[in-house]
């Protein structure tokens, strides 16, 4: 069968990326919850010392990258599902991507200048 399968562009790669980034964020969430129970958020000083730890900076970097990648796939799916105008869709895809890249840079410089 030589049918050309073209669709909205949902792919296995995006599906997998959504799962992997989701698992990374879920694991980080549990680490942060455990840290909070351990007193890492009990005071401003404790919180800043915790976030300045090398391992936590590494993990929070992975969290930020995962979050932005995950949000890109999810928000793009929303635009693809509900917008019929290709021009508007393209515009919002670009805006979403630019916003997320900017957020990632902003958040990473916050945790890495500690």
């Amino acid at each position, binding site marked *: 069968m030589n049918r050309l399968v073209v669709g909205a562009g949902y792919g296995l790669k995006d599906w997998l990326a959504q*799962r992997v980034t989701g*698992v990374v964020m*879920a694991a980080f969430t549990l680490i942060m919850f455990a840290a909070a129970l351990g007193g890492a958020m009990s005071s401003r000083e404790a919180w*800043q010392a915790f976030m300045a730890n090398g391992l936590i900076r590494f993990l929070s970097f992975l969290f930020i990258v995962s979050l932005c990648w995950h949000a890109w796939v999810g928000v793009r799916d929303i635009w693809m599902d509900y917008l019929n105008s290709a021009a508007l869709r393209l515009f919002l895809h670009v805006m979403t991507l630019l916003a997320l890249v900017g*957020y990632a840079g*902003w958040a990473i410089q916050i945790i890495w200048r500690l």
Partner: protein
Amino acid sequence: MPEMTKQRPKHLALHEIRLPLAGFASILHRISGAGLFLMLPLLIWLLQLSLGSTQGSVELFAAITGNWLVKLILLGLIWAFLHHFCMGIRILLIDIHVGVEREQARSSAMTVMVVSLALTAIFGLKLLGAY
């Protein structure tokens, strides 16, 4: 019904559609994700202020998080995060063929909604300074 011509385009009457429970939990997954995305600048800003060491950032953080409207938004975001988190775990389990059957899928959707609301109450009371 080969004789009948289907009406195209088909317009869905959204207010008449009765979603099954799993469908309801699913659309909440999308809504919570969209809400978290839209509020990302606020969350990153609060992270920045919480990690800032100047007197200005300390005072601004206290002023912003003390505002009742911000508290309300944060309460909504706590729910959004928890629902998205719990629903995400449900989706991962279904991916590995756990809870695919209709009855299990229905009860897991209910579990997601109950657990995320209960956790929202616990974290929300902390946000509001109840303990």
